[in-house]
Structures are given as C-alpha cells and as structure tokens.
C-alpha cells in the first residue's frame, strides 16, 4: 500500500480543478503534454534520499505540507517599494505569488526585436513556436518535479527574440512571493527562444517574504540558436522558510554562447538544476555559481553539461562560503559523447567552510566517450587560510573582520563575472551584508 504524501494528495485534487478551469483550452495539443507529465509525476513520485540524485537533499519536509497555489495575495505596490533593486533597468516582469502582474510589469523593448507574453497567452498566439519548442528539452520523463511543473503549465513567461536581433535591454523576471498569510506554492514555467545570431540578457530573481512557507517549483527552457549569445542570471534571496526547486534547461546550437550566473544569497532549501545540452560545434557554455548559506540553509547545485558535437567548450566555476550549520551540495556532470571530439571541458568548485558545523558535499562526474578531448575538474573544500588570517591580524585587523574580508574576496571572483550592473551591485550588497553581519 503506497503511502501518499499530503502534498501529492493536494496536487491530485488541484490537477482536476486545473483541468476544469481550462475549459475549452484543455483540448489544445499542449494539454496532452500536461496530462502525460502528470501521469509521469504520479508514477515517479517525489524522490527520496535513496534516489542517487537526491542523496543529500531530502524533500520530505516539502511533501509533508500543503501550499496554496492559487496566486491569491494582498501584496501591494507599497510592499514592493520595500524590496527595491536600485537602478534596475530593462524589461521588468513581475510575478506575484507566481502570477504575472501586468500592472507592475514594464516592457521597454520594441516588439520587432523582442516578444514578451505570459505563457498562457503565448500558447494561443504563438502556437507554432510553442509546438516547435515547448517541453522539447526536458527531463519531465525522469524528474518528478519537472513533470509536475510541466503538468501545471499555465503561469510563467514566454520570450522570443527573432533571428539577428540584438536586444539591448535585459529581460528581468522578478518572482515575489508573499507568504505572510499562509503557505504559498508556485510553479513558474518559462520559455525563452533566442533566434539565430541574436543576443539577450535574462535574469530570474526570486524573493520571498513572510513567516509561512513557500514552495517554488520552477522550470525554464532556454533555446540558444546558431550564433546566438545569451547571458542568464538566476538570483535567489528567499527566506529560511522557503523551498526552491528549479531547473534551467538549455539547448545550444553551433557557434552559440551561453553564460549562466547562479547566485544564491539566501534560501532555506534550494535545489538548482542547470542542464545544458551543447548540440552544436564551436559553441561555448559558461556556468558560474555562488552560494552563501548560513543558519541551517541548504543549497544544492546540480549541473549537467552534455557535449553532443565536436569542437565545443564548457567552463564551469562555482564557489561557496558556508556558515553556521548550513549545508551545501555541488554535483557537476560532464558528458562528452563519442562524436564530440576536440571538446574542452573545465570544471571547478571551491568552498570555504566558515564554521566547523557546516557541511559541503561535492561530486564531479565525468563521462567521456570521445578520445580526443581536454577535460579537467577540481573541487576543494577547506577552512579560511590561517596564515592569511594571522597576517591581517598582525596589521591590526580583528579576526572577525579578517575572516569577513577573506570570505568576501573569495566570493567576489564570481560576482565580478556578472554584466548587469544593477544586479551585480544588488548582489554585492546582499552578500556583503550576509558575510559581515550574520
């Protein structure tokens, strides 16, 4: 007899309600994808720690709860003013409790270079693009959370850049989730299609507030076509009572460049999956990450880069500073398929344990079937350098300040790789505050 978790029970009911709510739209081809995904979710179930991919990240505490996914909120413009990102410019799209807010959002780029729509509208208006791309680069068949997100596809953003368009203004998605009244759940589903030789900067920013719990199950698909260049930022500043499971699935074509910066300043339980398929030659994939957990925060980054074709490069660089009783996980997979000769793949993950109670689990996984490749990987986890601390103390700097300076310098290397100035400054402030004052 299967023991059904309370969250699953809730989702079974929610899905029925969701189908009823779709009315006539439940006959569209996309709904077949949803239904298949929901069946898959039911079969897969939420993973346990016996599942290799979830060994260090126990989701039991999420599945034992229930969350309101309806998007209901009393969030106001005044509340928003309390959580600014100064000097933020570009196409700024707000999702409050997972629902697109047309009142708060602002689109500045011209429609000829950039189409931005809530995904529910795009399903109707851009059905050809949806059919061509939606859920075609997915792990919905093997990952219960991805399946669940696909099943409930309704809220999220659709972004399309036609061929040869260089979009000057970034697209910034701000997910603000207000759990002051009750537990809130959201399942944003985003689809970014960047045409050939086009350029775009994307940022997803997650922020939660309130004492209650938040469960975010996010999924973003990004298609980077031939010779396109995409910069992607994922920025997380969520409360200790937030659970965030998110996947960014990227498909790169020849001569494209994709760069991800994943920075987790705060979050109670975070699992970021970054899956990149390099399905083209002379392409470049960059993955940069930074996480600074404190208290009992748990931050897990799983990355996969799959080199499918020859002559491409990937470059991965993650850093973590772990304070208090926090835990971190880094799992970095590199696949180099038999065809992918002359691949260069580099991976590095460096961690500082700022407390003896903090724990970091790192696991590089390389699977290489081609014979003419260059791959390197290295992970380190250590304490702050005693010699450096003494050197600073000998100049009159207190041990606490010396530690903070060293941690900040360590983290800075990742921050420096960011190109959207306002987000860089915002994160710098968050991280400085966290390192010095927590």
């Amino acid at each position, binding site marked *: 007899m299967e023991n059904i978790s309370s969250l699953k029970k809730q989702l079974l009911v929610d899905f029925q309600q969701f189908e009823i709510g779709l009315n006539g739209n439940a006959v569209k081809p996309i709904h077949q994808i949803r239904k298949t995904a929901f069946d898959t979710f039911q079969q897969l179930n939420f993973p346990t720690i016996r599942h290799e991919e979830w060994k260090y990240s126990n989701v039991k505490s999420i599945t034992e709860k229930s969350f309101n996914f309806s998007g209901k909120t009393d969030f106001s413009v005044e509340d928003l003013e309390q959580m600014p990102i100064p000097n933020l410019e570009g196409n700024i799209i707000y999702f409050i409790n997972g629902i697109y807010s047309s009142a708060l959002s602002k689109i500045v780029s011209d429609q000829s270079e950039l189409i931005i729509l809530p995904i529910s509208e795009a399903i109707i208006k851009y059905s050809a693009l949806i059919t061509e791309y939606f859920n075609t680069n997915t792990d919905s068949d093997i990952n219960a959370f991805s399946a669940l997100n696909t099943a409930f596809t309704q809220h999220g953003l659709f972004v399309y850049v036609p061929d040869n368009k260089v979009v000057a203004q970034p697209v910034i998605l701000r997910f603000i989730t207000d759990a002051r009244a009750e537990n809130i759940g959201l399942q944003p589903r985003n689809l970014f299609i960047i045409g050939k030789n086009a350029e775009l900067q994307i940022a997803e920013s997650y922020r939660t507030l309130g004492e209650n719990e938040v469960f975010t199950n996010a999924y973003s698909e990004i298609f980077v076509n031939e010779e396109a260049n995409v910069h992607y930022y994922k920025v997380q500043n969520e409360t200790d009572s937030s659970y965030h499971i998110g996947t960014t699935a990227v498909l790169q074509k020849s001569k494209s460049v994709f760069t991800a910066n994943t920075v987790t300043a705060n979050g109670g339980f975070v699992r970021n999956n970054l899956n990149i398929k390099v399905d083209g030659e002379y392409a470049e994939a960059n993955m940069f990450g930074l996480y600074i957990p404190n208290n009992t925060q748990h931050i897990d980054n799983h990355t996969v880069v799959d080199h499918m074709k020859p002559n491409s490069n990937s470059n991965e660089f993650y850093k973590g500073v772990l304070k208090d009783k926090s835990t971190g996980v880094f799992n970095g997979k590199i696949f180099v398929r038999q065809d992918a000769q002359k691949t260069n793949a580099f991976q590095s993950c460096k961690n500082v344990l700022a407390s003896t109670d903090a724990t970091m689990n790192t696991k590089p996984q390389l699977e290489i079937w081609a014979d003419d490749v260059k791959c390197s990987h290295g992970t380190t986890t250590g304490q702050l*350098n005693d010699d*450096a601390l003494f050197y*600073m103390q*000998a100049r009159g*700097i207190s*041990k606490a*300040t010396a530690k903070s300076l*060293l941690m900040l*310098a360590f983290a800075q*290397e990742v921050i420096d790789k960011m190109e959207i100035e306002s987000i860089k400054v915002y994160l710098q402030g968050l991280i400085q505050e966290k390192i010095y004052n927590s």
Partner: protein
Amino acid sequence: MLKIENLHACIGEKEILRGINLEVKAGEVHAIMGPNGSGKSTLASVLAGRETYEVTEGSIEFFGKNLLEFSPEERAAEGVFLAFQYPIEIPGVSTTNFLKTAVNEIRKYKGEEPLDAVAFLKMFKSKMAFINMDQSLLNRSLNEGFSGGEKKKNEIFQMAVLEPKLALLDETDSGLDIDALRIVAEGVNKLKSPNNATIVVTHYQRLLDYIVPDYVHVLYKGRIVKSGTKELALELEEKGYDWIKSEVDQLV
C-alpha cells in the same frame, strides 16, 4: 619599551625558545642573528602573537603592559609590527583596502574616529611618496603575483602607514638581490626615529651593512648566547656560527 624575561615557548611538544632575556629601548636597533633553527623567527612570531606557539614561561612587557595578554590585532594596535619573512598573498583584497581597514580598526581600538576616504588617501599618498611606492602595486590584490622584492617593499610601505613603535623585521633580506635589499633598508632607515625601535632578525650580516644595529645578539638553541655591538656581526660573517656553537655546547 620592550622587556623580555626568561621567555620559553614551544610548538606542540617541542620547546623552541628556552629562556630569552632581552631589553629594547626607544631609538635602538637590535639585530638577532643565529644559525638555522635557533629560534629567531619563532621569537618574532611570538612577539607578534602567533597562536601556533605556546608561551610556557616568562614575560614580555611592552611599555609596561603585559603583551602576552593581547591578541595579535591588539598588539598591532599597541604598536608592534611584524614584517613577514614570507608575506602572504591574498587574492581579491587590494593593498589599499587592506590598509584602510587596518588603519581604521587600529583607530577604533584607540577610541579615535575612522579616517574618511579623503583623509586616508591624503595620508596614503604622502607615505607612497616617502617610501617611493608604486601606485599600481597598491591597486592590485595584496602581494598576489608580486616579486620577492615587491613583497618586501610592500611590507615596509605598510610599516610606514601604520607607524609602529616596535618593528620586527623577520629575515627581510631573504630572497632579495642586492638592489632590492638596499631599497628596503633605505625605507627602514627613513622610518627610524628616537621614539621607535627596530629588531632585525637575520641569518646573514649583509643586511646589517645597510641597517646598522646598536646591538647584536646571537641566538642558539633557543637562548641568547652572545651579545655585542655590530662588530660581533662582522666576526660572525668571517668565522661562521661554528665557534659559538662549540663554545656553548662545551659549556653544556
């Protein structure tokens, strides 16, 4: 200024300093010499407060205060400066930022207001001119990728900024060619005043051609076994350390 009495210190089970007695007055330059492993660098580290060493016996008084009760940063704020034999490279922290933090933490310790950016920069520029320090080095990460000479010069520059009462130069000559040695020694000499004192720890006499000591002490097996004036250093240069070793070992 400094009074060391019967100082014993060990690292783990191993006793390295076995009863050091030394008195240093303002305006003086003392050289501590001795063969490898005699405890010279340990003495400098113990004075600066390195926690790896445990002081098991004896006392260190600095302007009448018990130095052993102070943390390394408090000692620095009280006016002790250790110029490191191997200055540490600290990626991501510029020399400027590092020293600004140090200056203001010391001011806080003394109950003074922090220097604002303008005042700090003004002081900084005057010290740079005084020591002839290159601006480009100061904007780079602290000591990262610096040559041996640049690192030692940076130590002397830091000393100029922090204006210590007691400077401990730990093997400042090691790894320097003769030109770099002269530049570093010039800096030290410029900073000398009747109000501060310098302890030069060195294996070789050559540094003492440039930084002329008032007193020379020979350390061997954790004790000062011979003291004299700068002529003692010349004698050591000529005869090596063996004659002192055999003198001492015969006594034991």
